[in-house]
């Protein structure tokens, strides 16, 4: 089986760029540690409160160190539980200063949800029985919408939250 000369050039060029491309992705993944969210920790979906992070009083934003925050969230149809404020009201916006490192930990007691903070790299599937975690640095200020991007039922499109990054 003979390859035509031009086809050889074309394929060498194509496979070459493929190799470069994979090398870049591999470099970013294994040297820089940029993996997609792949947290491996299970939880009982019918009893998420049993986990320290998802106790009602631990939900929402907490500063764990200077400039470092953790946000614990329970995603359920059709709502993100971001905890309660001092007055006992539902929190609907997470506010963090610019440049802070934020770890998002999300789980669900019911069906599969999505968790995407539009305009950032935070985009994870949230599945019953698993905890999804992603740490990111909020570099830009502004308002970012948290959307549920996996179909979870008739109220799916009403499931959202907000992250506000201020100076």
């Amino acid at each position, binding site marked *: 089986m003979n390859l035509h000369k031009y086809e050889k050039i074309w394929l060498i060029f194509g496979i070459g760029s493929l190799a470069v491309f994979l090398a870049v992705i591999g470099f970013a993944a294994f040297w820089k540690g940029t993996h997609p969210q792949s947290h491996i920790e299970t939880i*009982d979906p019918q009893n998420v409160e049993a986990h320290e992070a998802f106790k009602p009083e631990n939900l929402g934003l907490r500063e764990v160190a200077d400039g470092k925050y953790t946000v614990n969230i329970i995603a359920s149809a059709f709502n993100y539980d971001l905890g309660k404020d001092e007055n006992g009201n539902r929190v609907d916006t997470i506010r963090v200063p610019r440049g802070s490192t934020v770890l998002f930990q999300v789980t669900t007691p*019911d069906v599969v949800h999505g968790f995407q903070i539009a305009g950032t790299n935070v985009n994870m599937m949230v599945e*019953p029985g698993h905890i999804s975690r992603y740490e990111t640095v909020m570099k830009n200020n502004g308002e970012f919408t948290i959307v549920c991007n996996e179909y979870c039922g008739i109220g799916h499109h009403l499931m959202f939250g907000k992250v506000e990054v201020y100076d």
Partner: protein
Amino acid sequence: MVYIFIQLTFFAPRGVEEYPIAEEEEDAEPTPKLLENWVLWIAITIGLILFAYTIPVFEILQHSPPGSPPFDWPIGK
């Protein structure tokens, strides 16, 4: 499209529409026999699948959380 389909099915004039199957060049070089070694290619396919899936599926089963009961109400049933 549906209109054209109906036309072609029931109303277009009778005739014979060709079934266009292309032929090879007369002087084409012969195709290697290896390409029709089905056992070989199926074996490689299955090998690749086993390579890519065995360990992760095993891990999924090993670390599986308590299962999920069915949910009916979110889809309005």
